[in-house]
């Protein structure tokens, strides 16, 4: 990832869209949670406040799920803050890599169930599956529910004709996308890459599955992560090109790795990913961890961080204040870390001299880490 820098940032989160404000919220320990219908804590985005008109043509909206709009808005903000439109790049020179969970969110599920309930109530359903289906499912539903939908829409809206791919996984996918995008820049295949990640764990069935399999979502009176929704995006460019065009450079990508856990020891895998991402750098960076309140995950990350950087090394976890954003969580951390490096300070005064390390750990059975440094 030699010479790849972050020039654009975009965030849509329960705590708002300003990465610096999220860092301040983290330092102050002020969560951005509200109670869901059942009284459980949840990190919900104020979707009505999003400037959709700015980033998504009205005619495209019927093809977009709630969670996809978050990704599109985050990517729009990142493209805007990078000044990419004014950079004069050809469409083929800019690519987009996405990261996502696979579910389009409760809004689609519930709407489909409601429609189906109405149609099914008309009479016996045996042998009528196709009739019911055509009555309740829009022909475009397939496109709406695709994991790549946010990246595809962003590509269409912004005429991005370079490399494209969407990785999935509720832990590490965003860092996989970031690294693969950086690779495209480092090899000179693309002049700029947009990386976006969006996800929602505010899904009725996801909560039930997590509860049933001890996935660690917070229910009343029980420890666990707070499910949330949101998105983040960054723009990557080659450092010389970014400097030449006078772009605002937030941070430089200094290392990164993903590591599988064939024996199921995710702490070990995370430790190996962190070691590879750290490279030859000495000392402990500021760790933006993936701890989210789920005991097993938090213990694994603590063990990995202690083993690599020494016992008690601080872990700053944005999930404490915005909740678990699934596939978007790690990229939100990248945005927060890059913004802090760009500003040259972390709220509360923690040192950024050794850069920022962002960790990710997911259901997909592998871990990832990315290191950022001041540029």
């Amino acid at each position, binding site marked *: 990832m030699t010479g790849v820098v972050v020039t654009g940032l975009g965030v849509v989160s329960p705590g708002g869209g300003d990465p610096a404000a999220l860092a301040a919220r983290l330092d102050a320990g002020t969560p951005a949670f509200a109670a869901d219908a059942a009284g459980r804590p949840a990190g919900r985005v104020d979707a009505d406040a999003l400037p959709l008109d700015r980033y998504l043509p009205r005619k495209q909206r019927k093809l977009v799920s709630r969670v996809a709009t978050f990704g599109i808005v985050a990517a729009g903000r990142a493209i805007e803050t990078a000044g990419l439109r004014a950079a004069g790049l050809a469409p083929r020179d800019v690519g987009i890599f996405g990261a996502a969970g696979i579910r389009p969110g409760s809004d689609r599920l519930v709407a489909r169930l409601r429609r189906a309930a109405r149609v099914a109530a008309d009479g016996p359903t045996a042998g009528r599956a196709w009739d019911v289906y055509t009555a309740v499912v829009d022909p475009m539903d397939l496109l709406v529910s695709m994991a*790549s939908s946010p990246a595809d829409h962003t590509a269409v809206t912004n005429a991005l004709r370079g490399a494209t791919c969407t990785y999935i996984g509720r832990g590490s996918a965003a860092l996989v996308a970031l690294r693969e995008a950086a690779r495209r820049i480092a090899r000179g295949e693309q002049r700029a890459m947009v990386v976006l990640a969006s996800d929602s764990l505010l899904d009725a069935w996801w909560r039930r599955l997590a509860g049933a399999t001890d996935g660690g979502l917070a229910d009343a009176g029980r420890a666990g992560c707070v499910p949330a929704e949101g998105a983040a995006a960054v723009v990557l460019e080659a450092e010389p090109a970014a400097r030449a065009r006078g772009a605002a450079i937030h941070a430089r990508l200094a290392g990164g790795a993903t590591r599988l*856990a064939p024996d199921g020891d995710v702490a070990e895998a995370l430790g190996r990913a962190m070691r590879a991402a750290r490279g030859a750098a000495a000392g402990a960076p500021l760790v933006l961890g993936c701890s989210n309140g789920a005991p097993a995950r938090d213990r694994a990350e603590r063990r990995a961080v202690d083993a690599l950087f020494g016992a008690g090394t601080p872990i700053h976890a944005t999930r404490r204040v915005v909740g678990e954003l699934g596939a978007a969580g790690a990229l939100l951390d990248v945005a927060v870390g890059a913004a802090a490096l760009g500003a040259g300070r972390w709220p509360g005064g923690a040192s950024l001299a050794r850069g920022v390390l962002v960790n990710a750990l997911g259901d997909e059975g592998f871990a990832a880490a990315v290191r950022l440094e001041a540029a």
Partner: protein
Amino acid sequence: MRRRVAVTGLGVVTPFGHGVARLWAALEAGRSAARPITLFDTTSFPVQFACEVPGIDERAPGQRTRRFALDAAAEAWADAALPPGTVDPERIGVALAVGYTGLDSAWFADEIDFLGRWRGGEDGAALADAVWDALVPAHGGPETFGLFLRPETVVGEVARRCGAAGPGAMVMTSCPASAQAMATAAAAIRDGEADVMVTGGADSMVNFLGMAAFARMQALSRNNAEWETASRPYDRRRDGFVMGEGGGVVVLEAWESAVARGARIHAEWLGAALTCDAYRLSDEHPDGVAAIDAVRRALADAGVAPGDLGYVNAHGSSTPMNDRVETRVLHGALGDAARRLPVSSTKSMIGHLVHASAAVELVTTVVAMNRGVVPPTAHLRERDPQCDLDYVPVEARAHRFARALKTSFGFGGINAAVVLGAPA
């Protein structure tokens, strides 16, 4: 540092059954794997046929997809014959594309039956909870259902079986997904981040919800009267693609270490490119501008001139639009060389394996190159006048070649092109 990448292991699960040998024998003979659907009740369904994988007991889409991925990976891993302990586990990775594992066909039937009896009002959360309570226990419980919500766990399973502790990635997009996964894997080797990558894709969309989604978009052939020959790319009578299912996995390896250990090298991964049409979500750009760019970039990445190519294994989906646009793309990207090249679509025989299609077709291309035989475009009897290339109609053809192009195009305007070379 740019390292060479060898293909040292091949594995497939296709509508012709398990194994590369079985697939190749059927393709060379120009056989069709299409048959009436057995995996779900097609009463009232507009499409009555597909290319199902035989001999797999699992019926839930997630379980089938998982099984395809694991079985294809097992064959590829065995084929690579990597002696245990010769490669540091941290230098072995997994990059897969796994499809929208979707809800079971029986689930949808049970769901609408339940909803027909639902009298609890329109509180969305209560409705979703009630459906969960009524259906999940009867459909394999949370663990089975979890594959629908978390198909990415398949990457972890393959890693366990191959002892891979290195890089991991999981792609989910549309038809080119496994090409994107393989490109991710090849890049990791090329850039020195891994020495061995297990990569490819798996998918099972032969279920009510999977096929209904494509049927609603008018993408599937509805030629129920001629189901056996309905997948007929480039034929003027084509009316859509035929759904298939399966998995394809290859083992990619750093060239030097493959040579050093005396591995059988099937082919060399020479280069690849991905682009996006940025046109419409549902349609390809009619001029194929970005797809042309994908082919040109892949050739440049591979250091191969259009005239050096000996075969194109095309996306060739049998939809009216794709085949026409793809023909235009090959003309645009390859120039005069396009007319001299044999171009065939093996989807004519195995259907469209969606997330697995590029990987299975890449395996096919490798075998074709090594055997000196180009598989045919089956069922091509009346060529579309707008499709004017040499599509190797109906019968396989003896043809020696040392460079091949594999193209994949999909929803979202996603394009992928891969260039392979004979081992040398």
